[in-house]
C-alpha cells in the first residue's frame, strides 16, 4: 500500500522540487521533507516527498543480504 517510489531531486524552488523517476520528471512538494537537497533520493508518494532515502543504509542492506545469502549457501 502507499505506493511510494524513489525519485531523484534535480532542482529545488522553495518547497517545490523537480524530481526524476527513471526517465520521467514531475514536480514534488518538499513540505514534509524540508531538509532534502538536490541530488538526494526521496520517497515520492502522491506528489510529496515523504522521506529522504539513506544511500548508506541501502548499501549496507544489500551487503547484509549478500552475507545472508552466502551463509545460507554454505550452512547445510
Amino acid at each position, binding site marked *: 500500500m*502507499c505506493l511510494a517510489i524513489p525519485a531523484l531531486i534535480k532542482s529545488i524552488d522553495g518547497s517545490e522540487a523537480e524530481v526524476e*523517476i*527513471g*526517465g*520521467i520528471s*514531475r514536480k514534488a512538494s518538499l513540505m514534509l521533507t524540508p531538509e532534502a537537497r538536490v541530488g538526494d533520493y526521496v520517497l515520492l508518494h502522491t506528489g510529496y516527498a515523504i522521506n529522504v532515502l539513506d544511500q548508506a543504509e541501502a548499501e549496507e542492506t544489500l551487503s547484509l543480504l549478500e552475507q545472508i545469502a552466502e551463509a545460507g549457501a554454505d550452512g547445510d
Partner: protein
Amino acid sequence: MAHGSGGKLAHELIEKTFLGALSNPLLARLDDSAVLDCKGRLAFTTDSYVVKPIFFPGGDIGRLAVCGTVNDLAMSGAVPLYLSLAFIIEEGLLRDDLNRILASIQATSREADVQIVTGDTKVVDRGSADRLFINTAGLGLIPDGVDISGSNARPGDKVILSGTIGDHGIAVLSQREGLSFSTALGSDCAPLNGLVAEMIRASQRIHALRDPTRGGLATTLNEIAAQSKVSIRIEEEKIPVRDEVRGACEMLGLDPLYVANEGKLVAMVAPGDAEVVLARMRRNAYGREASIIGEVQPDHPGRVVMKTRIGASRIVDMLVGDPLPRIC
C-alpha cells in the same frame, strides 16, 4: 463549422479540405462508392478511434486511425490495399486542427502504401462528440499459402515481441489533466505491414500474429491462448520496457503488461524458424528491439504464466476495464 448536412457547404469541405489532403485517382472520382478490382482472399476490418487528446506526443488520432486498421489487416498476413475514412466532427473543431490531422493521415497512408478510396464526414453539435471521432475500414489481400490466425498457435512455438511495451499508453496518459508528468516519450504508433511482409518472407511457419493494443500484451496473449487452446509461458526479464515507461508505471501503480501499444506485434513462430524471423525483424525500423519472450505449451489451455524476475511463476490474467492510476 456547419458542414455536415450535404449540399454546397459539405461539398466544399470535401473538395477543398479532404481531397486536397488525400488525393488519389479513386477518391478524386467522387462517386458514392469506390469500385475496386480485387481477386483472391480478402481481409476486411473496421475500427473506430476516439482517443483523447487527439494530439499526443508521437502521433495523433489521424495517424492512429490509419495504423490501427492497417495493422489489423497485417495481423492476418494480408497486404493492406484500401481504406475508407469517416469523420464525425464536433462543431467548433478548429480548421487548423482538421488540416493537421488530414496531413497526418496522408503521410501515414503513404508510408503504409495504402489508398484512402472512400469517405464520409458528419458534423455534430458541440458536446455530442469529443472534438473528433474517426472510423476506418480496410481491405487487404492475403497472399497464397499464408494462413495466420490467433487460433493457429501450436505447442513449441516461440513467442516473439517486436519491441518495447507501454509506450503509447504512457505517452497519452502524460497529457491527461491531473496526472501531469513530463517525458520525452512518444507513442509508438506505426504501420507494421512492412515488418510483417519481411517476416513472412523469412518464414512460412508464422502461425499467429497480433498487435497488443488496448489491454496490452497481457490481454493479447490471453486471447491467443484461449483461441488456440494452448498455454503461453513468458519470462519477465526478456520483455523490453523503456525507462520512462517503467518510471511512469512505478509512479502511478500501473503494470506495463496492461498498457496499450500501437506499433508493436507479437508473433507465434515455429521453433526452427524463430531465430531467422527474429534476425529479419531486427533489420526493420519497427523491430529493432524484437526479442523472444517465451513459448507456447500444450497444458492448461487458455492460461498465460510468467516467470518473474526472482524466479517464481505467476499467472498473467486479462485486463479488466482500464488500468487506473493508484496510490495504494
